[in-house]
């Protein structure tokens, strides 16, 4: 009897070992490891000359609070617990009051802002409550209309310091996306929080698949402005557009290499009857054919090292993800399950590839990430319409994507574990977002 029981336990453990529980992937720190911040709010500085300062203070406080919360690193303490209010300068800070509380506050953020001679001046400090050390002290001077930018920069400075540069903060980053027009699609750009939307192209044609250069100075994209789909570079500063000097009636889905010196794209070049992956210099020289196959190869994305490329191919039947190196080694399929996979984007730390997938038998696309080393797959969106075209934030903690969960397609953002979904646009007809790199 005992032997039988032992056998049973053995088999049971074996069964549990080969059928592990679906793991969940978590981005936020556990509650007991959270960094707790007291954001006391910016006060009006001495010598302010403009009565509009209240509006700017409200924006400054609101944006900074939202930025710090959206970074996913911190918990912000409710102001009702604050023992001290209206701190403008470090001399007013009474550490004993903050330490006495059983609130486990790690850092306090305070400061002041004023308008002098039409300049917005913001002073900001961060102090370590436990040690009393000054962690950050900064003074910003700019035009009042850049008040949101100042808040974003303060948030990024705080994130950089408090995470020991694990992230440089994404509050100053931007997102480029496609938006339907009457005749095609134009490219737009917005801040990472959906504010400040600007039109980037106005050529009344079809403009698609935007991707940022590593220094954010250029966006490469697909456009039909020369009738046939070709690859173009948009100078973000002056709006000028240059065409990639490679001949062919079908060039699309360009992406910059991590060093910004080359681009990978899908093209059907002269003499070929199918789209393959190519790499070339920005001037079109040193063109190398990376994949050869009679089917479709499209949507390349570089690994952060620049040595590998993930792309979509139908060489196995339905569209699936493959990895190859830039020297043209035999492509390796990542996920064996079928269905329709699309739009891979390699995470900045190289560990994951985000993609959209409609598994066999499903009716909708969802966002998934696959861990490259283990090939483990995590599903991030579920049961909310179609979710496509993921793009990583430069710190790899957030993902922007398109979804038609509310009817028409709009741009959404979430933590890379699928939580904290935020809708960024409400225009409808918005597609293919791409997150910029850090704005330093």
């Amino acid at each position, binding site marked *: *009897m005992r032997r*039988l029981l032992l056998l*049973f336990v053995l*088999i*049971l453990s074996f*069964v*549990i070992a080969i*059928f592990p529980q*679906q793991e969940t992937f978590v981005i936020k720190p556990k509650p007991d490891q959270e960094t707790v911040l007291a954001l006391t709010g910016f006060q009006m500085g001495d010598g302010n000359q403009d009565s509009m300062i209240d509006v700017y203070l409200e924006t400054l406080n609101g944006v900074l609070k939202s930025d710090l919360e959206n970074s996913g690193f911190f918990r912000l303490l409710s102001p009702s617990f604050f023992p001290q209010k209206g701190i403008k300068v470090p001399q007013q800070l009474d550490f004993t009051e903050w330490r006495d509380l059983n609130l486990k506050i790690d850092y306090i953020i305070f400061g002041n802002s004023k308008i002098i001679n039409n300049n917005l001046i913001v002073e900001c400090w961060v102090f370590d409550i436990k040690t009393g050390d000054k962690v950050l002290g900064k003074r910003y001077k700019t035009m009042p209309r850049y008040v949101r930018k100042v808040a974003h920069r303060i948030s990024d400075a705080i994130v950089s310091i408090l995470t020991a540069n694990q992230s440089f903060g994404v509050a100053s980053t931007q997102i480029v996306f496609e938006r339907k027009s009457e005749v*095609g*699609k134009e490219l737009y750009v917005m801040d990472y929080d959906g504010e400040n939307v600007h039109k980037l192209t106005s050529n009344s044609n*079809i403009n*698609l*698949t935007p991707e940022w250069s590593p220094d954010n100075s250029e966006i490469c994209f*697909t456009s039909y402005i020369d*009738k*046939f*789909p070709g690859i173009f570079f948009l100078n973000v500063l002056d709006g000028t557009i240059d065409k990639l000097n490679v001949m062919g*009636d*079908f060039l*699309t*889905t360009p992406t910059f290499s991590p060093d910004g010196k080359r681009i990978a794209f*899908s093209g*059907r070049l002269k003499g070929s*009857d*199918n*789209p393959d992956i190519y790499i070339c210099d920005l001037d079109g020289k040193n063109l190398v054919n990376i994949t050869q196959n009679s*089917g*479709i*190869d*499209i*949507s390349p994305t570089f690994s952060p090292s620049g040595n590998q490329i993930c792309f*979509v191919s139908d060489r196995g039947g*339905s*569209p699936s993800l493959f990895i190859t190196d830039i020297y043209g080694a035999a492509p390796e399929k990542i996920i064996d399950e079928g269905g*329709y996979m*699309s*739009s891979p984007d390699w995470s900045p730390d190289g560990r994951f590839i985000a993609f*959209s997938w409609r598994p066999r*038998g499903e009716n909708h*696309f969802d966002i998934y990430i696959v861990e490259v080393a283990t090939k483990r797959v995590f599903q991030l969106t579920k049961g909310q319409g179609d979710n*496509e*075209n993921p793009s990583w934030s430069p710190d790899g903690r957030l993902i922007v994507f398109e979804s038609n969960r509310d009817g028409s397609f709009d741009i959404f953002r979430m933590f890379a574990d699928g939580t904290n979904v935020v809708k960024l646009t409400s225009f409808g007809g918005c*597609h*293919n977002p791409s997150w910029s790199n850090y704005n330093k």
Partner: protein
Amino acid sequence: MKRFFILGAMILTLIFLFSCGGRKTPVKTPPQTQRASQQHETFEKPELNFYASKDTINRGESVTLYWNSKYADEVIIENVGKYSPVGSIDVRPETTTEYTAIAQGKGGITTKSLIVKVLQTSGGIVEENLSDEEIFRREIKDVFFDFDKYNLRPDAVETLKRDAYILIHKIPNVKILIEGHCDERGSEEYNLALGDKRANAAKEFLIKEGVDPSRIRTISYGEERPFDPRHNEEAWAKNRRAHFVLIKEDKR
């Protein structure tokens, strides 16, 4: 007895673990066995499309009758002849004539009729001079594809054979652009490539049929230029196509 009971309980537990511990693969219904499907086999009533290259001709001219059918074994054109399920025939009616096509299959018959009007001219044959553009517009037909596919369906092959014939024999001087289009259900990026493959599948076939490659250029529009903007199967089927456009060249 008690031992067997415990053993049974263990086996049940194991079965339960095996059945719920696996990957989240959807439960598949077992495929129907051959016998079951034979017993319940029903034959579809034939579907038939029947049309003529022109509704009106001058006496002495010929007109082409086309048909394509599904679930039919043969198609009979009354007073003309018996044919395969997909085909075409040139006829030269002397007077206005009604043609009736009958598609016969295991599921029954379907009939379609059309009328070719014949204009009686006083001085014998009157030539109608059609421009290349006019012929292109009337005769060159688009081809359609299945979801996420770029191989040519049998109906597309028939259509392309005819298109090639017209391009070679009736309008040998025109150049064409083949546009590849997709429905909206795939991904935007992949559809760009799919549209390219569709346009090139049509191009390659025309070349194989003898059309000079220099006369054909292709462009993919992916899902960016749908013919039918609605979001249903009827619209999607229309939007998965290789569409033919005449390239207008500057005449000096």
